């Protein structure tokens, strides 16, 4: 009898104290939706539409995106095997350059947005990782499939990779960076990224 009672106490204790921070189903998707909605709100804000507000608008968008995107993880995964050989300063520098690269490539697309609708097609959670599928309907009646790969960082689900129409961002840059580094050197890669960033 006493044993059963003890067991019950232990079970109860382990239930109350051993609990992980609770993950609600739908959390990764919900957090992504919030970020997207914020960006869309900035884009459709009439006060920010004029040409001289362009810079201000970009900064606002970047601030929102920064919260959701794990740039360092993206840079680490893209550099793959070559990341470990870099010094902390180099890693930091590379993360900034990588972020600037993505900014240049994707900001125009985000700003010139003519999306009609965004449909959230569900998520797949696997421990601390989750994939969220999104379908973007453009004004031209086309659909674009986007899959976000996120991982849990504290209470936030942060994006470390995304796949557009089956083409993955990290995989794409991983192959490119690897080729450049093997053909020439890491310094050459940084040089190329820097010249690209000054061109804008």
């Amino acid at each position: 009898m006493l044993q059963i009672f003890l067991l019950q106490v232990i079970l109860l204790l382990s239930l109350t104290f051993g609990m992980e921070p609770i993950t609600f189903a739908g959390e990764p998707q919900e957090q992504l939706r919030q970020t997207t909605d914020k960006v869309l709100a900035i884009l459709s804000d009439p006060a920010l539409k004029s040409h001289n507000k362009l810079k201000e608008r970009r900064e606002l968008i970047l601030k929102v995106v920064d919260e959701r995107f794990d740039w360092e993880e993206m840079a680490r995964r893209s550099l793959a095997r070559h990341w470990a050989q870099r010094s902390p300063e180099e890693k930091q520098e590379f993360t900034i350059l990588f972020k600037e690269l993505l900014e240049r490539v994707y900001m125009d697309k985000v700003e010139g947005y003519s999306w009609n609708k965004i449909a959230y097609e569900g998520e797949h959670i696997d421990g601390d990782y989750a994939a969220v599928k999104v379908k973007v309907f453009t004004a031209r009646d086309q659909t674009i499939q986007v899959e976000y790969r996120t991982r849990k960082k504290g209470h936030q689900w942060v994006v470390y990779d995304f796949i557009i129409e089956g083409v993955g961002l990290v995989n794409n840059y991983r192959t490119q960076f690897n080729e450049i580094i093997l053909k020439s050197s890491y310094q050459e890669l940084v040089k190329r990224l820097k010249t690209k960033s000054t061109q804008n």
Partner: protein
Amino acid sequence: MKKYNIELAVGLFVLAGMLCLGYLSIKLGKMEVVGGKGYEIYAIFSNSGGVKQGSNIVIAGVEVGRVKNIALENYQARIILSLSSKVKIQEDAIASIKTKGLVGEKYIEITPGGSDKFISPGGRIRETQSSVDLEELISKLVFEKI
């Protein structure tokens, strides 16, 4: 006595022939006799895109294993990869389904990651990319122009 010898010779000859046939079918069919060396990991793809049992698995163009099994799990393709024991796959490696040339056979390419954790036998490659439907992409491009 002589007849017996001839019969024995024919019997041995047939037996040798059958052994050769067996060896050939295993070699050509790329089957493995009891296990084979190496280990298995699995990956979940949203679309297996025509990869078959026995399809190649490559890293940097070098064959490192073969597809052992493909099954449907939760309306997704669960593919078991049989890899050479010499090859270690990092936890953040990406497995993607590719096509040799435009219409060639399908294979799985693994782009090695930078993590210091490796996937243990029976583990899973989390990062996967299904095959890109070129036809669909081209049609999108075409219609965008109009």
